[in-house]
Each structure stands twice: as C-alpha cells, then as structure tokens.
C-alpha cells in the first residue's frame, strides 16, 4: 500500500484528534471528503468516469468487447479489471510495488464486482456458450499527472485506451501552461473507496450496443450490430456495491482516511456495501489486528456510510444525466 512516513509526534497528533472526533482537516470520523464525479470523460470507451476524492484522482474506462463465455458459466458475460497504479501518483508505486498493488486492487475489484448479484452478468450474454460481452474495466490512478515529463516518460505504460488521451493532455499543457503552475504535493489516500465509486459511475455510464443473433437454415449463427448508435443497453447498477474502508486509528475508526491517517492505522476493514445496505464482501487489511467488537461497530458504520455514499452518488449521476449535453465537461484536467 502506498504510504507516507510520519514522525511519532505527528501520528500521535492525528490519533488524539480522531479520539476527539476532529481530524486534521476538520472532518469528523464519519465524514467523507468532498468528492467530484463526472462521467463520459473519455470518448472512445463504452463508459467512463472520473472521481476526485480530495487529491485521490481516479479515472475509469469501460470497454465492451465481444468474447466467448467462460466454460463454467456459459450463459453469462464477465468483467475484467486492469489497474494501473502509476509511479506518478505516488513514488511508492514505482517498480514492482505498483504492479503488486495494481493486481491486488484488481483481484479485490474482481471479487466485489463479479460476485453474484452485483452486475447482472446474464444480461451480458448474447447467445449461451458462444458469445457474450466482456467488460474491460481500466482503472487509472491519476493523481498528480500534470507534469510534462510524466507523459513523455517512455517507461510509463498506459494501457492502450489511454494512449490517445495522453496526447491530448500534452496539448492542453502546451496551450495553458499557466494553469498548471502549482502542484499540491499532497497525496490522497483511500484508494479502494475512490476506485469503487468511479467503477460504479463508469458502469452506470456504460452503453453497450444492441445486437441481434441471426440464425440461417444451416444453424450457423451470425451477429448483427444495430446501426443506430443510440440503440444500446445500459447496465442496472442498483446492486453494484461500493467499498467503504474503515481505518482503525487509536480506539476509533474513520472513513475516507487521508494518506497520513492511513499511516497511523495498523488495521482497517474494507466492506463492500450495496445501496440497500447489504454487505457483499469484507476483508481486513493491514499489519494489525482488530478486536471483534470493533469489527461489529465498523460494519455498522460501514453500512450507514455506504448507504449515504450510494445515495449521493446516484443523485449526482442523475443530476448529470438530467443536464444532458448542456453542461460543459470539465474532463480530467479540471
């Protein structure tokens, strides 16, 4: 996990603050930072979203491609996750550490979003055993991506979909140099929650073209794509969960921890909660242990916070949709 090194006194200050329900940035233990959500930010994807949570900045793109269903589940489509924790976001991501974190997040996402009853995988099936939609979900952790060198760094690998996007960023940079003159060297924290919110928003935004299966006399099947680009199916994201990470700090726990707070937490509990308050996944992370009673408390908080998280997210998504094309896009450089 990306982390910062703090002095003992700084940690103590944070821990005492949590005890008094006043965190360093003035929040209470159960407050989220102000989040900004925008969808449809990358044009060449089936769906995309960008979420800024404090300084944690996540961009998710979903691409629907046709594939063959998995052997054990012939009547379902599936999701694939790719997480790029670029070294630009935090130096900790450099080298193998980033790769490891990337696969860890990807496997957690897989566990959460592919679990039964999250996304209706059956709706992704085109014809059983032969064709289905595969949703490739690319997660790009895009903190602090405003320096020219980071785009030109050949060692930095972006997955294919982002390549064009990077080019446009460099252009923007060239034209409005003045707008990027400062950089707040502060890192975000709470990667899991932010990613899950973005994934949900991107799935909400995803539009899959409608297809028809045509069968001729010999029984061979042909797939016909609808000509109308607006003729598409959308996913029902009602049961798609969001992750709420509860960091145990001192004797209490906080939600949406900053990187500094994460450094003070020995153990945290990651909970996936649906909008109805059902828990679909939980996992302890960190070097420390938790006493059973505090886990119960954390689950309660997680449910409560998770529900309002879903409510706020849905509100923003609906608001954005109602504004339609009248709203000016900010995009990923705003």
């Amino acid at each position, binding site marked *: 996990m990306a982390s910062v090194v703090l002095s003992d006194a700084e940690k103590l200050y944070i821990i005492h603050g949590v005890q008094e329900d006043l965190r360093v940035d003035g929040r209470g233990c159960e407050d989220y930072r102000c989040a900004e959500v925008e969808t449809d930010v990358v044009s060449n994807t089936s769906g995309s979203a960008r979420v800024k949570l404090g300084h944690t900045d996540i961009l998710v793109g979903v691409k629907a491609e046709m594939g063959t269903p998995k052997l054990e589940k012939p009547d379902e489509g599936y999701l694939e996750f790719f997480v790029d924790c670029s070294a630009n976001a935090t130096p900790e991501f450099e080298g193998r550490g980033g790769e490891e974190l990337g696969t860890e997040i990807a496997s957690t996402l897989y566990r959460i979003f592919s679990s039964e009853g999250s996304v209706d995988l059956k709706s992704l099936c085109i014809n059983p055993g032969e064709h289905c939609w595969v949703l490739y979900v690319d997660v790009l952790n895009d903190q602090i991506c405003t320096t020219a060198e980071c785009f030109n760094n050949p060692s930095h690998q972006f997955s294919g979909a982002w390549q064009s996007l990077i080019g446009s960023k460099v252009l923007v940079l060239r034209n409005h140099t003045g707008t990027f003159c400062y950089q707040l060297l502060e890192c975000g924290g709470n990667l899991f929650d932010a990613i899950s919110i973005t994934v949900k928003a991107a799935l909400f935004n995803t539009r899959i073209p409608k297809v028809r299966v045509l069968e001729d006399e010999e029984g061979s099947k042909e797939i016909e794509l609808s000509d109308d680009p607006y003729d598409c199916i959308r996913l029902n994201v009602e*049961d798609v969960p969001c992750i709420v990470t509860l960091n145990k700090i001192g004797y209490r726990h906080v939600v949406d921890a900053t990187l500094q707070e994460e450094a003070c937490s020995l153990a945290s509990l990651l909970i996936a909660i649906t909008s109805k308050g059902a828990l*679909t996944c939980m*996992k*302890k992370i960190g070097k420390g242990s938790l006493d059973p009673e505090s886990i119960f408390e954390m689950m*309660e908080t997680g449910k409560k916070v998770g529900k309002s998280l879903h409510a706020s997210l849905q509100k923003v998504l609906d608001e954005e949709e109602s504004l339609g094309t009248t709203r000016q896009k900010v995009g990923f450089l705003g």
Partner: protein
Amino acid sequence: MPLDHRRLRGPDESQPPELWAAQPRDGGGGEAEESGAAPRDPCALRPLFARAGLLSQAEGSAYVELSGGTKVLCAAWGPREAAEPGGAVAAGRLLCDFRRAPFCARGARPRPGGAAEREAEREAAAALREALEPAVRLSRYPRARLAVSALLLQDGGSALAAAISAASLALADAGVEMYDLAVGCALCRPPRGDGDGDGSAAEPWLLQPGEAEERGSAARLTVALLPALNQVSAVLGGGRGGEPEGWGRALRLGVEGCQRLYPVLRHCLLRAARRRDGA
C-alpha cells in the same frame, strides 16, 4: 501463452474424466443429496489433526489435516538476513509463500505456473501474511526476514483457514517470538432454496464447510483469531449480499470456532516442545 520450458508439458489440451461422465448432471446431484440427506449441525467442527516439528530441513514445521480431506503442510524459517539492506531496519519482514499441489483439487488439474494458478496462489499468500503478521513479534527481528511456506496437498474445504493454523504452528515451532497463535476458521452460507438470501435471522452459516458445501455456497468467510488476546487478525469473505448483522453473526460463530480449535493447536505445540526437549 508463452511456452513453459521449465516444466514437462503434456498435450496442449486435456479434460478431466468427470466432464465425460455418463450422467454428469446426475453425478453432481447425487452428491448434493448426500450432503443434503443428513443436515449437519452448522456449528459442528470437523476434527482437526495437527502435528508440529515433522520436517528436518525447515526450522519449524506443522501439518494440519481436517477430517474431510484438507491437508496442509507448512514450513517456517527463523530470522535470516534481509535480502536487500535498504529495507526497514526497525522491524523484520514476514514473507509468505502458498503453493497448491496440482493434484489437490477434484476435477481438472490446474496447470502449475499458469496465470490463473499463480494469481490464486499469490492471493492466498497475501491472505496468509495478513493473518499472521499481527501474531508475530516482528519488532524483535530488526533487519531480518522470517519466511513461511505453505503447501496445500489436498483441498477438502476450509483450506485457507487450515493453512493459517498450520503456518502459525510452524512459526511457533521454529521458535519465532509471537504475540499469540493465529487460529483460522472458515464458514459458508448455503444458498436458500426459496427466494434469495435477504439476510433474515434464520440464515444458517456452516462452520468449517467441506469442499462440496463450499462449492455450492452463496457466501464464504474466513476468520483468523489470536485467541489469548481476543483479536481478529484476518477477515476475508464475500459472496451474495447479506445484512451486516448476518455477517456479524457469522463472524461471532467463526471467532467461537477458532476458540474451540485453539486447545488442539496448543496441545500439538506442547507435544512438539516436549518431544524436542526429550530428544
């Protein structure tokens, strides 16, 4: 897929005979009937057999077997010089490795070294480290690394939980200073026949499910407990959504299960210590 030159490869494709079984549906159904015929006590623990100190090359070792077939062997190595001096000086590092024998599961033999297999092993190794780290006094081993290797010989259900118990026994057997043993216990929630699980109070969680129960479950949970300190060192679970209260009950049941398993592990360690002293 890149060719693996380091292993002898058979034909490109092969299928387990179960796939071609005369009445595949029937075979599966018969099994379900078997487990369904005698509804088991959900709180029953499968007998656990544990033995520590049986390997010669490892500094500490343990073997845990759950009746029903799960067999895990673990080896532990005490402090060694950390490979890279640049790492944290203040505390030691715990390295975990988890391997699944190619013949450990029913059905198709996974290709060793295949991407899916590597991913599964990596995830299990990470879970093992999460569960053990709080139990080990790493601050006592500055500049050093401790290593644990687990090998799953046969997966009869609750494998990760058994591996956690075995690994903590192996560490204790190696003389590594620990705050407590980490005891693992698994649970699963069978799918409900009528209507989907809405998390009502009656929802039964089964302690230490067998392989068949695990395969058909709607949700699974693995808990690890440090019994003397009453601290939970690992919670890992997922599946079909349920009320947090339901999961809370499962957690309570799992913690209780760990506590019930603790005396067995404790006894096993003492026996090993006595054997060692006697030798």
